């Protein structure tokens, strides 16, 4: 019985859909070791969707937040100085100087020649 219980190890599965995309959690599975976990990850979760990379992680190695800790993740709504929202008035200012605002959309478009 003990041997049987030990057979079922929990693994969490993560995968990437494309080279550009971040790893995404898929689901969990049971497997006796990481090699079989990897095979089952493909069989269970990637029968159709494109996939370029897979991670399997033993669940016991994951430090998760508990319910109380997750509650502490709520943000106070007074952090505009940290975001562009707190500097939105600049748009009007620049217009007074007959210039366009260099906003996030504009700045992030500068990498390379625009091709992905």
């Amino acid at each position, binding site marked *: *019985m003990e041997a*049987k219980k030990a*057979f079922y190890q929990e693994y969490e599965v993560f995968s990437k859909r494309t080279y550009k995309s971040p790893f995404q959690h898929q*689901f969990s599975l049971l497997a*006796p070791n990481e090699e079989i976990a990897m095979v089952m990850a493909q069989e269970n979760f990637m029968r159709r969707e494109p996939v370029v990379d897979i991670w399997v992680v033993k669940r016991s190695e994951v430090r998760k937040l508990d319910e109380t800790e997750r*509650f502490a993740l709520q943000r106070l709504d007074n952090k505009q100085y940290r975001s562009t929202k707190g500097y939105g008035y600049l748009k009007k200012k620049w217009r007074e100087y007959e210039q366009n605002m260099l906003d996030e959309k504009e700045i992030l478009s500068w990498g390379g020649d625009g091709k992905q």
Partner: protein
Amino acid sequence: MANMVSFDRLSEEEKHARFMERIAAGEKIEADDWMPEEYRVALIKLISMHGISEIMGALPEKEWVPKAPTLRRKLGIMAKVQDEMGHGQLLLRVAEDLMKPYGKNREDIMQDLFSGDLKFHNVFHMPAPTWGDAGLIGWLVDGAAIITQTNMLHASYGPYARALQRICAEEVFHAQHGEAIIMALTEGTQEQRAMVQDAFNRWWESLLMFFGPAQASTTGSSKQDVTIKYNIRTKTNEELRQDFFSKYIPRALSIGLQLPDSTMHFDEESKMWVYQQPDWNKFKQIIKNNGPKSKERLRLRQLSYHNNEWVREALSPMNKVV
């Protein structure tokens, strides 16, 4: 918010109130979160039954892999059987995480199935003797499953809702696979059309039973009230059955099938389908593993479990030779 900082110090009532607030606000409950015992028990019952049914359902379908009429049909039904096993794997994981506080795992789920404590869906106790049955299962049994499963896509329990998202996306393929078989047969010879009608007649009662009785009093128990109370699903058994009729009866008639219940009609006033009730005592017997194929299918599962026992032992990390 301040009183939430020490969640562990809340009384059971306060935890329950907070839990109800969370689900009312559309938040998702996760495996390690506090939850009422009634919620956990209802989920375990629902999801372990759903998961094991996926696996038991793959058994009658896989019988059709060697007998499917063309290579394309073989590949199609094989892919479907593989999906059903995959759905079983997903759902059992969800159930196992919920059972953890009781010290139970997959081994216990299998033993509960073999002992009859864990039930599987009524439709999977029935025979599927012809290719018409294979098509009908894909079209209407999967169609019925889509109706009940999409009703739980927004379930308050996060892991189940996420599993259902994956499952329902694949069920769309299953339903179309079934429709393609049925369409080919109904557009075929007289004999092929008769095969579909025959399968439709054979599965009619099982399809009515699929959604469960309208009232708990019919069979003595029902989880529908608890699952609705906790936002696991929104519609009652009867509402789901009516939705199924509205979606599928017009389609069945359009391809020339006759309704097995000649008294069935849509009542314009109540906006409900009026139909003859299936034999609910028979239903009770079927789900107690006294259906026509119950024992045979359980034996198949049992055999494969025992035949593979050496693999579980050999690969158990505890037996690893270092």
